[in-house]
């Protein structure tokens, strides 16, 4: 029976795939139904996994099995319930207490970690001797890294008009930015095509059995 059900599952999968692809022809009820099933199941999955993987092991079990050592956990539990109060318009302001803990923690950590990883380290990585390197390509690369990064930052400098030499530098910055966007473009194309490949491997392999899955 399990095998039949597994086979049925593959057919369901194929049917749902075509239901979604029908949008490519035009927007239609079958697509809309498939889309709503997608939204509903996704929400249900998150819900169950949040309970089983977070609230049960990190909150419920410690509180029920060893309350004495975990008394303090009552506080986040209360804040969590406050969070849920957002659903009730009359008392939804209590959720602000919970939100402020979440937002404050994230903001504090994001400030420090972003500053170190994305600002200071990137700055120190741009500091290098552009005259030394094992070959011409590396030296050229270093020049590009230095000029591209600094002119790029100048492009995003808003306190000065883009005129004269400053404007010319910013113009150069935009050239580097565009080349990066081009690469990003190429990589995004790559990603989207990969997803289509995955889908066709499923249809041609698991469903039709034309290719080896």
């Amino acid at each position, binding site marked *: 029976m399990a095998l039949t059900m597994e086979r049925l599952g593959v057919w369901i999968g194929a049917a749902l795939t075509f239901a979604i692809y029908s949008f490519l022809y035009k927007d239609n009820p079958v697509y809309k139904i498939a889309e709503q099933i997608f939204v509903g199941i996704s929400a249900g999955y998150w819900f169950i996994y949040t309970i089983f993987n977070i609230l049960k092991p990190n909150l419920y079990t410690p509180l029920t099995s060893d309350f004495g050592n975990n008394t303090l956990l009552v506080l986040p539990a209360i804040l969590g319930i406050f969070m849920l109060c957002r659903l009730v318009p009359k008392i939804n302001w209590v959720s602000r207490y919970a939100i402020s803990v979440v937002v404050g923690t*994230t903001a504090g950590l994001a400030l420090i970690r972003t500053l170190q990883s994305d600002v200071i380290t990137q700055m120190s990585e741009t500091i290098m001797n552009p005259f030394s390197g094992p070959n011409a390509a590396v030296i050229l690369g270093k020049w590009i890294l230095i000029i591209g990064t600094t002119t790029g930052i100048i492009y995003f400098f808003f306190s000065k008009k883009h005129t004269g030499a400053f404007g010319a530098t910013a113009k150069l910055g935009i050239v580097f930015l565009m080349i990066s966007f081009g690469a990003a473009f190429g990589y995004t194309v790559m990603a989207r095509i990969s997803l289509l490949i995955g889908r*066709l491997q499923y249809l041609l392999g698991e469903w039709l059995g034309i290719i080896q899955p």
Partner: protein
Amino acid sequence: MSFFEKLMKIDRRIIFLLIFIGVAVPLIVALNFTLEITQPVRKVYSLVEDADDGAYILLSFDYGPSTKPEIQPMAIAVLKHAFERDYKVVCSALWPMGVLMCSEAIESVKEEYPNIEYGVDYVNLGYKAGGLVTINHMGKNMRETFPTDAANNPISEIPIMDNIKNLTNFDFIVGFSSGSPGLKQWVQVAHDAYGVPVAGGSTAVQVPSLSPYLNRENQLEGLLGGLKGAAEYEKLIASPGTAVKGMDAQSIAHLLIIIFITIGNIGYFVTGKYKQKRL
């Protein structure tokens, strides 16, 4: 109406059909194009290959089914490599869907490595929310972040976790990531705050924005980018899978897209449309 004007007005559904065929045909008829290995992929490979015997590694599954075609082959390839080298593999997830992605990946590797034992050679710790903050917590106290594994077994009863107090006990971390939270957060906290080597695999979309982390500091030790990166890794461990098989289709599809852009632009200039709209 000139030929190009007609060509420009072509129904988009014809384009849809062309790209569908362009991907399907090379999947059925293999062209066996060659595959070149790039440096960021080789660096991930060496990181895994050259770690100490019995190394403890953390694999984080931060993706879901939507990007499974790109990421799952990487996860499978890295798992195979890790089990081949007899490492102790700890799996976790910052995305809820990652938990099932992880067990599916391990399931498919088990055929090749039937002797790996749950709790001794590998463990699936499950999902935790919170991204950046949660990784920071893991950096201090892994056992408090994960009091149990995904199946609710207490962490104290899982032998593989005996030697793990926090992230610094891992030889390295490999994140499989399709967005936020994901590799960026692993770099920011696990590497930059706790000094643990971090490598990873990401969707091709994320590669450009992660690339500044591939630097002298090795904020990111190496990166598998998209299906291509997965295919390269599969080739390096000599275990071709779905990624390698998809590469022909990838090449043809890229060519098609380039042809589309070229024809579109020729049409744009030939029909004089570029003159019409100027501000």
